[in-house]
């Protein structure tokens, strides 16, 4: 009798645990839909060399229930012949990084992280470079270059 009661109680617990735990853990195996958007503000041809320029991209999150797209910063940066599409997401605690002209560095206001124009972490606590959005360049009929980004970062931070 006692053993039977224990077995039934165990069965109840197990039955309820399977859906509950699966539900709880579902974000772990939910795949993020990759969505591409064009960075706002027009072609990137006249962005000056050596000056990171903040543009906005309206990017859907791609996971979870339907929600409006979120505005993201894309620091379009041309430097030594290379094109970077930096996010404003600090690799340390993901605070809002900005380009600080007086330092010629990207600076994070939270804990003082610093990044060079190439995104390399050069000061403060950040453990990794400034992450870039996954990006590609498209050329339109007039030969102008448009930047597109996806809703994920190139580097895992």
């Amino acid at each position, binding site marked *: 009798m006692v053993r039977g009661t224990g077995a039934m109680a165990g069965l109840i617990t197990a039955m309820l645990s399977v859906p509950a735990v699966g539900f709880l853990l579902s974000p*772990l195996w939910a795949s993020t839909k990759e969505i591409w958007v064009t960075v706002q503000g027009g072609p990137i041809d006249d962005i000056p060399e050596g000056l990171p320029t*903040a543009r906005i991209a309206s990017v859907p999150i791609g996971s*979870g229930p339907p*929600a409006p797209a979120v505005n993201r910063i894309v620091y379009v940066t041309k430097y030594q012949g290379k094109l970077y599409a930096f996010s404003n997401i600090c690799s340390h605690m993901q*605070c809002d990084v900005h380009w600080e002209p007086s330092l010629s560095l990207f600076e994070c*206001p939270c804990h*003082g992280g610093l990044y060079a124009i190439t995104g390399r972490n050069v000061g403060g*606590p950040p*453990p990794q470079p400034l992450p870039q959005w996954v990006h590609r360049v498209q050329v339109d009929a007039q030969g102008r270059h448009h930047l597109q980004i996806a809703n*994920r970062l190139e580097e895992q931070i």
Partner: protein
Amino acid sequence: MSDHTAGPEVPVPAEQGDFIGLVPAPIVGPFRRSWAWFDDRTGITGLLYKGLYEAVPKRGGWAYTLGSATLVVIIVQFFTGIFLLLDYVPSVTNAYSSLLYLRTDDLFGDWIRGIHLWGAYVLMLLIGVHALRTFISASYKKPRELNWISGVMLFFLVLAMAITGAMLPWDQAAYWTATVVTNIPHYLPVIGNGVRTLWRGGDFVGPVTLTRTFALHIWVLPALLLGLIGGHLYLLRRHGEFGSWVNYRTTTDNPSGEIAERIRHAEPPYPTRGSEPLYSVPSETVDFFPDQLFKDTVVSLVLVVFIFVMGLISGAPLDGPANPATLTYVPTPEWFYLPLDQLLVFFPTQLVGLGVFVIVGIGATLMLALPFIDRNPDRHPIRRPDVLVPAFFFIGTVIYLALLGVNRLYNL
């Protein structure tokens, strides 16, 4: 109906008969008859009697008001929290606007929100002072180890309530708090990334982050909190209020005889089971009601008035709506998280995980394990320098970190 009208037939114990003047024998009049009816079926009088007339140490009662004040403020938090739920919508599209509505259109809505915020601030301080008082008077020693441990766990739960609550308004402060706080677990070895993904509901802070945090703040943490508070109070009543060393001095030249005499005349819940004889009964006790309850009520009243006034004149701030595309917003933690935030500055690159988890983990473990670390039976603070000196160094370090954080963020 006629059963309870005649006095002599109703058995009312003498000591319950004059219970706070509510049920004097004979039982006459509609109120006293209803009380007697209800009492027959529930035993409410005995329960109240037991609750109110338990012995507490006579001296130092003002120092022992902090626990009940903490409870009162937690009750304020529960009620104001329920009221906020009447307006608040836990979604990334509506959370902010529901609080704007509460601010502009709802009578006293913003006051309720201010009380909830200032209640949280006062609660933090109160728990700190309550723990400090318990620590200095060594009330955590045998057999009250679990009182201390449940109290430390309650402190951690309240910290978790504060941090989850801070994410709910979905203004700039909330969004960036959510971003930083949900990012911290990612520095855990092995499971870190998984924990962050589970809390956020994906790689980025988004709609699922808010609903999951809301569920934690509204149901999961309060349920744990209530259960632990019940346990904490049960243990308090089981072992009795310890008081402090001043309540256990012996005054004659025959201390063991004096202590034996105290134990013989102890009133419940004394003598404390499992305690050394010297600390099992305070030298003088009074009933919890009315002496201690009066002091408790005075302190609670002062604090509740302070919370109500600050909730009205200072209120709770609401920044602009959450905007990940800001280049100017400077996220600043609430003051009680400044020491942790400052640790994040100190630990660069690959040591972030060490700084956050090892140091905080050691601190938390030391707090929880205090009753087992400090096995010195003496209760007098002067004779316990081995724990008091390190502890004050620890507290001083925490305050110093907070001051460094203030200096860094506000350039004072």
